[in-house]
């Protein structure tokens, strides 16, 4: 009898675990076979999707396959967006209870495109370790949490990344009493103790770079970036490593005397930060892609949240198509035709979002400027 009780206990534990892993996708759980079929359809339609859409004036929502996640979002009436929570400038819940930040504003833009309401977003603060699991299990619809787009994450984790919203690179911040020269190399950090956040590409790059340089170091790994910064501030580590943007913004926000620290010029990696959705819903992925591209395109065309209404009467066909005044661009991916207009009107173009959130921290546009200004921000044509 005791054995049976133990067995039941183990089973109950296991079921709770499994429920936590997989229970959060309400729409799919009941009908596994339907899902598989839909995925198959995706392949067929995308193969000839362009031609069909050009000739048929009626854009039936079914035409774009794999839309059940997007449909769930539309039925629910809001978008659940996974964000950082304690990262000033990118995703931050301030003392007044308002969400601010670069990544947060993209969530608002998607909500604006979907519901014509930039506040139809439910934010979920996620740790670096939880973020992809939250996406896989369907706890969040979109992840906009300064996540690096990498092959493994795209392939093995079952994610689809959106366009890069911020081109970043890993950097290392050191106390000036250890290394005072910003041009120093990794050799200067022989034997150093380095604070780092777990579950990040940074953690992996750190190991790779120091191994390649043959320099010994000791990592001190924290689950939470704030804890890593706090430990660095208290002198637990000689250096802290993270994305350059993060070191600059968090450093100014958290460290008591930012001038005592120096960010080395050394670029340790490419960190393209991009939003992500779970694989299997191309429609949702399209929406995420094209809203971001629309915001970049709007900046290129000089359309801002202030003057967007003036452009509605523009004669320029490029602008008219972008804002949905003419053409059926939105409905081809199952959205309202004016979805870009809504995002621009309610949130702003890429440059506005950048200036509002990142310029105050002294982060120059650099690589994140438009391609016309020598940066990397480039939107495919809207036609």
């Amino acid at each position, binding site marked *: 009898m005791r054995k049976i009780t133990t067995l039941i206990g183990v089973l109950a534990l296991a079921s709770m675990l499994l429920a936590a892993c997989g229970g959060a996708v309400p729409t799919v759980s009941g009908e596994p076979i339907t899902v598989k079929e839909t995925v198959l359809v995706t392949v067929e339609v995308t193969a000839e999707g362009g031609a069909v859409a050009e000739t048929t004036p009626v854009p039936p929502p079914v035409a774009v396959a794999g839309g059940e996640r997007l449909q769930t979002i539309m039925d629910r009436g809001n978008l659940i967006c996974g964000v950082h929570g304690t990262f000033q400038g990118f995703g931050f819940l301030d003392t007044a209870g308002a969400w601010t930040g670069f990544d947060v504003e993209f969530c608002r833009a998607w909500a604006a495109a979907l519901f014509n309401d930039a506040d139809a977003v439910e934010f979920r603060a996620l740790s670096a370790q939880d973020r992809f699991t939250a996406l896989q299990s369907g706890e969040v619809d979109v992840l906009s949490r300064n996540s690096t787009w990498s092959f493994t994450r795209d392939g093995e984790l079952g994610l689809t990344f959106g366009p890069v919203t911020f081109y970043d690179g890993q950097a290392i911040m050191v106390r000036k009493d250890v290394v005072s020269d910003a041009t120093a190399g990794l050799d200067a950090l022989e*034997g150093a103790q380095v604070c780092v956040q777990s579950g990040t590409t940074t953690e992996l790059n750190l*190991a790779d770079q120091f191994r390649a340089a043959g320099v010994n170091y000791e990592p001190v790994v*924290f689950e939470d970036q704030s804890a890593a910064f706090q430990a660095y501030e208290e002198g*637990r580590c000689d250096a802290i490593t993270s994305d350059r943007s993060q070191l600059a913004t968090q450093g100014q926000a958290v460290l008591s005397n930012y001038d005592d620290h120096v960010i080395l010029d050394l670029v340790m990696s490419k960190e393209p930060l991009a939003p992500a959705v779970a694989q299997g819903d191309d429609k949702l992925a399209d929406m995420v892609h094209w809203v971001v591209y629309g915001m970049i395109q709007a900046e290129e065309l000089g359309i801002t949240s202030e003057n967007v209404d003036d452009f509605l009467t523009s004669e320029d066909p490029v602008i008219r198509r972008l804002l949905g005044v003419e053409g059926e661009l939105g409905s081809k991916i199952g959205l309202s035709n004016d979805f870009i207009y809504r995002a621009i009107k309610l949130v702003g173009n890429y440059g506005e979002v950048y200036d509002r959130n990142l310029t105050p921290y002294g982060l120059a546009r650099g690589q994140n400027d438009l391609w016309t200004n020598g940066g990397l921000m480039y939107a495919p044509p809207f036609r």
Partner: protein
Amino acid sequence: MQITAFWRNVRFLQALGQVAFVLIIALAAGFLYANVSTNLTRQGLTVGYDFLNNPASFDIGEANIPYQASDSYGRAILVGLVNTLVVSILGIIFTTIVGVIAGIARLSSNWLISRFAIAYVGVIRNTPLIIQLMFWYFGIILQLPAVKEAVALPGPIYLTRRGVYMPWFEAQPTFDSWRIYIWVALASIVLIWLIFRWNYNRSSLPIPLWWNLAYLLAPVLILWIGMILQPQPPLLENIPVLTGLNFKGGLRLTPEFAALLFGLVVYTGAFIAEIVRAGIQAISRGQLEAARSLGLSTAQALRLIVFPQALRVIIPPMTSQYLNLAKNSSLAIAIGYPDLFSIAGTVANQTGAVVEVILIMMLSYLSMSLFTSLLMNIYNSRVRLVER
């Protein structure tokens, strides 16, 4: 003879109930399994343990077994498991000492001592462990001076925010030939125990307390003789010395390890104190008074009469506290100690094999706990009241 209809047969109904219960459980498990595998298939993820052989390519700050970033994920998880075991075993040893002392202090007739113990138990038991860990780590250990201004305690033990440095022994090449003395020293302990036992069986009189010193003195004496006989000492004291930015030599406890161990010991010790107090109070006062009236001193009465009986009450709840300590060590992630939970979390994040890694973690903690329970149950059956 009347045959009861089967739907009225109590034994049948009981069996039916059990079968139904098992069926429900099996169905629920099956549904959940199908749900997980559907979700995984939908996202093109496969379940399997092949990833354990891939290189981990992340570093671990402190490892008790050799590890480098080019080792496999499996090895990384093993490092985490060993780290968890180290902190759990040391924690269980120290928390028992702290808890027993605090439990006895709680019953002390000395007003100051008993109030102090009550305050300790009250404060520690009623605040969450994670907050205490944060307090010890950020509030105490990281507030220690920098390496160059280290607090030097006799020993020398140095307290710094980079860790605690203390002297340690370092094995010399001659250590191997010296092993025989260690075995002789251990044998002497067993021998003394046998002599005391024989003496007790012969005379039925308990040995005086100070005789127990023999357990300590004999091995020390033997080891000391060994030291003298060997031309080169087998062990050298390795004293930490400040060289450059850091101390070299000696034994270093990282701030994370120190904070975690300290936090777990202090927290669990408060619970054990209450268990010990309850165990002692469960023995009726008459026992103590009877022992005193037979001429035993208070210390003798406690040691020979009260404690052996109190152990019966103490051991079972103590086991759950040991299990709690081991499981609570998973909070290490908050203060950066690379335990099983922390490393397995990183592995899950890097590989996407969340389900597999969680199963590994559950199995590890489960087997650790079952093993601890097994040992404690064996011990419990030794001290249990023998009923004839």
